[in-house]
């Protein structure tokens, strides 16, 4: 009996506040837009009984999803979200790998401190970390004044409000998600394997490519998913650092809902985004499982 209560409390909470809301999103994505409050049709009408329920289901259709494919804004936004997320993930790997490698190679007594230095930004506000780049990247900002005074450029670069600023923002804010799994994989790496490779005539560089990199593969894959998945649905970074031409689906959804008040289309956008994300999420979980099996 006690056990049933213990299970029921978190279970019911998640059913009511996670699963049911999601069913509502799917339902509204199949409804039509209406000039009413709430702005969609059909509404659930209990007073009509069974007939009402049948009518209700008859009114649902895939019109909004068809609309998403006909209006180029949406599929362009999905494609450009994938593009931005892929490029930023690769950049994060490029920046994060050397840091993780350096940490794993650092003297043992230094590692907890380095670890804390990587985690510390994660505890500071995400919004502030994104905002900190606005002053650096703007046209009259610090980066431009530095480059101008050094004579490297003669005219200020336009970085803020372009896709480049979005890449920088994502790389910067998600860097800890890349460093930590890669570091965990590199730290476990047995140093004697590298010594063996070198004894057998491998140069240091080829030992890195042939031994270190393959053995850290799982950490790299985990890090890439941990960056790619949230980057796909990002809203804050494209709205603060991106320009009006930066299309990301999270931003489109937000504006569809708040500015256009088109709830059914916003819901359809959300459903499709989730369907796209299911693929990397499943792949990520498989990778984690493989890792657990390899360890256990």
């Amino acid at each position, binding site marked *: 009996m*006690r*056990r049933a209560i*213990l*299970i029921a*409390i*978190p*279970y019911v*909470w*998640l*059913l009511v*506040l*996670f699963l*049911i*809301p*999601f069913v*509502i*999103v799917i339902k509204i994505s199949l409804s039509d837009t209406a000039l009413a409050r*709430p702005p969609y049709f059909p509404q659930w009408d209990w007073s009509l009984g069974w007939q009402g329920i049948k009518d209700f289901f008859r009114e649902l259709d895939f019109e909004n999803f068809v609309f998403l494919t006909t209006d180029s804004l949406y599929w362009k936004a999905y494609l450009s979200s994938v593009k931005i997320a892929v490029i930023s993930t690769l950049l994060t790997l490029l920046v994060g790998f*050397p*840091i993780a*490698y*350096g940490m794993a*190679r*650092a*003297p043992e007594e230094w590692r*907890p401190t380095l670890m*804390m*230095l*990587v*985690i510390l*930004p994660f*505890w*500071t*506000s*995400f*919004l*502030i970390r994104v*905002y*900190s780049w*606005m*002053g*650096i990247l*703007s046209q*009259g900002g*610090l980066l431009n004044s530095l480059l101008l005074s050094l004579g490297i450029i003669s005219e200020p670069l336009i970085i803020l409000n372009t896709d480049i600023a979005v890449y920088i923002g994502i790389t*910067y804010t998600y*860097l800890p998600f890349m460093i930590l799994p890669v570091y965990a994989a590199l730290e476990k790496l047995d140093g004697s394997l590298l010594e063996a490779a070198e004894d057998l005539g491998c140069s240091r560089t080829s030992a890195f490519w042939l031994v270190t990199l393959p053995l850290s593969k799982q950490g790299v894959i985990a890090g890439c998913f941990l960056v790619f998945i*949230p980057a796909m*649905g*990002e809203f*804050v970074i494209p*709205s*603060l650092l991106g320009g009006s031409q930066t299309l990301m689906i999270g931003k489109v*959804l*937000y504006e569809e809902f708040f500015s256009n008040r088109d*709830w059914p289309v916003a819901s359809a956008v959300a459903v499709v985004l*989730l369907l796209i*994300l299911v693929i990397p*999420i499943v792949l990520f*979980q498989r990778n984690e499982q493989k890792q657990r099996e390899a360890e256990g």
Partner: protein
Amino acid sequence: MRRFSAFNVVSLTLGFAFLYLPMIILVIYSFNASKLVTVWAGFSTKWYGELMRNEAFLDAALVTLKVAVMTSTLATVLGTCAAYVLVRIHRFPGRTLFSGMIYAPLVMPDVILGLSLLLLFIGVNIDRGILTIVLAHTTFAMCYVSVVVSSRLVAFDQSLEEAALDLGATPFQTFRLVTLPIIAPAVISGWLLAFTLSLDDLVIASFTAGPSSTTLPMKIFSAVRLGVSPEINALSTIMIGIVTVGVITASLMSKRAAVQRLKEEQTAERS
């Protein structure tokens, strides 16, 4: 004894410079007398003064703190329950669905969580305000808590619990006297994690907040959309300062606890 190689020194220095320079610049410019970002017009604390007189920010900060305290407490209770269920109870109807619902919010984009919760709140006709933000934040924060707590639950020796039960303790007593003290560090870090997640969230709060319950991130967001502002720099500096002190204190405390434990273990072995 391993030493730093030149390559590692360079990659770590550059890496940490990238991670920390933007925040350090932000802190420095919060003391700039000029309103412009690039012009240094001397040291001044006037923006901190302006911030203290800005009622809207203070109100928003109060709302955010209220939400975060309620969220983290609720999420810790629910998340610990969920972790216990996941790790200790292997068979019950709908277990797969349950573990799916614990892991799904961790990877779900904020915009989708926010949208779906708002549609629920409208559907059941609750007035939006602090309560709805707390409900929304608790839902995703409890999943993070349960992941943190369950990793600790998996790691510890279950025979301790069995011993307590054999010696006549009730399951509840066993939990309170044996399990809880062992998982306490994870429960505390779960609480802290939930607290920062709630403090930090902009998107879900924007969807679920009502007109009178603007949170600090919402306030900051609408201010910085218009560009860099020295007041926000001052506010950011305060927030960065609090987090830095908090994280350093926590890590020093856990280090001291580890040393203490090592000493106790050594004494126990000797006697």
